[in-house]
């Protein structure tokens, strides 16, 4: 886990901001930024690129924050929420839901560290799973494209499967491109001509 997490606190109440920032600093997180005025929210999120955003559950700007996550394609950014009263059931339920909603007790700051650590750990596992899934999907897609390109060469040029693949590979090497890019170009061209 990175120890240098960037944390953005969205909270208009200065006293609460101080408490939260103190608690985060005491817990060993020093890269903390606080934002009181919400008009700057989208710009701040884009410029500061926080790893995690803390926002009060009752803050109406949550909807704005969610939207910023969609458009900046950072949906995988953890959004941590804190509530004013201790509610372990809610915390547990939110953690189990596991997507972006984490609930931290806002007043007893001694709890902020363990809950945040759990939240961030889960978030990083999810992000890793997601990128592995994305990689697997992409590999599968690439394989299909290459198979289609081979098929086209086998039909059009009367080649065996191995010879078709070798031709793709040689073309790619000659042109300094990837096999998948050559295959994609061939498939696209064939689609256009068919």
């Amino acid at each position: 886990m990175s120890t240098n997490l960037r944390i953005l606190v969205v909270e208009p109440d200065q006293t609460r901001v101080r408490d939260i920032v103190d608690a985060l600093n005491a817990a060993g997180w020093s890269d903390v930024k606080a934002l009181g005025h919400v008009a700057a929210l989208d710009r701040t999120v884009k410029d500061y690129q926080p790893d995690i955003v803390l926002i009060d559950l009752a803050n109406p700007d949550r909807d704005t924050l969610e939207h910023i996550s969609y458009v900046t394609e950072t949906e995988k950014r953890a959004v941590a929420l804190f509530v004013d009263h201790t509610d372990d059931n809610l915390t547990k339920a939110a953690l189990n839901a596991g997507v972006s909603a984490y609930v931290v007790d806002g007043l007893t700051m001694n709890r902020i560290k363990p809950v945040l650590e759990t939240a961030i750990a889960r978030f990083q596992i999810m992000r890793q799973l997601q990128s592995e899934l994305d990689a697997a999907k992409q590999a599968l897609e690439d394989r299909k494209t290459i198979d289609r390109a081979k098929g086209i060469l086998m039909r059009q040029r009367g080649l065996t499967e191995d010879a078709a693949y070798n031709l793709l590979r040689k073309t790619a090497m000659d042109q300094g491109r990837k096999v998948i890019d050559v295959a994609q170009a061939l498939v696209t061209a064939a689609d256009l001509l068919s």
Partner: protein
Amino acid sequence: MSATVLNCGYVPLVDCAPLVIAQELGFAAEEGLALNLVRQPSWSALRDMLALGHLDAAQMLSPMPVAMSIGLGGLAAEIDTLMVLSVNGTVFGISNALAETLDLVPFGDARQLLNQLASRDGTSLRIGVPFHYSMHRLLLSYWTSAAPNLKITEVTVPPPRMADAMADGHVDAFWVGEPWGSVAVQRGVGQLMMAGRDVWQFAPEKVLAARRDWVREHDGRVGQLMRAVFHASRWLDAPKNKPLAVEILGRSEHLRLSPDLIDPAVSGHLVPKQGAHPIEVNRFLQFHKHAATFPWRSQAAWIAEQLGADADGLSRAKACFRSDLYRKHLPQIGTDMPGASEKVEGSLQFDTAVASSRGHMILAPDAFFDGKTFDFSDQKR
């Protein structure tokens, strides 16, 4: 016998009225229910509380259950639409500065307004909407996509702050639910150009939503809740009740809005700009008439298609609009049932009588501003 308490989430907008009226006028009590109405600070918070089981049911933006059913919208949960709570009820408004760059456009002329906005050169228009998965945003995207050279930037702004955002120059225009459009007019920071119905004449706006597993386990309560809300929506749509509805909603601790802000939406008389005479907008906000409460599966499909769903997504969207529950729980109170659960969206230009169980059903026009129609029946896809 003590009443069963249901925790119902809502956001304080005029169109949460069916839930407030169901509780305040005793329609819930008649069904043996007590609705504990829990105000929510944002749509994201409402969604999370519903998904995590802290709310039994909630008022939701109609695209929210659809978005979640196709895997969009933040939290993975199965949320169903039991019935539609309100049809239409939103407004599109522009800042005074933007208004000065346009020629006079009659209120409600979606086509001419779009042409004028598209023909002015300049930077991208910043348009405020309350939530990404809202009918406001879908109608805005649908409408503006007819003018490809019009550049817009969507900005999410909590409705109570929409007038401020316009005053500060943070947005050039907004698409918002009442009373927040009228608030901007009262404060003199902008003017209303059209209502949501000028882009789609019969758009499902808010829905009554619940978790699918809760619905499965509480069949009896689901029926009680749906009947209570149905009676409240019928009461709300009766013209003679409207002044009283404004009075009750104005006094309600739930809305915390003054009656003069509630009146425009409920009466359908909007003041488009400061000092102007009110304009009567036909079917500005509909709670009950013309089968307004029926969750048409084709409405869910239209929403899903706007969200970019594939065929599988469309069928999942249809399945989350529970017209089956409507048919199961509402005939007991004599509700007229439409002969089908899907219609060709956008095909009705006039009030049209359709086949129904009691033979009294007249559907209202549901045409789009560009005349397009959407047939989601299986044989067409």
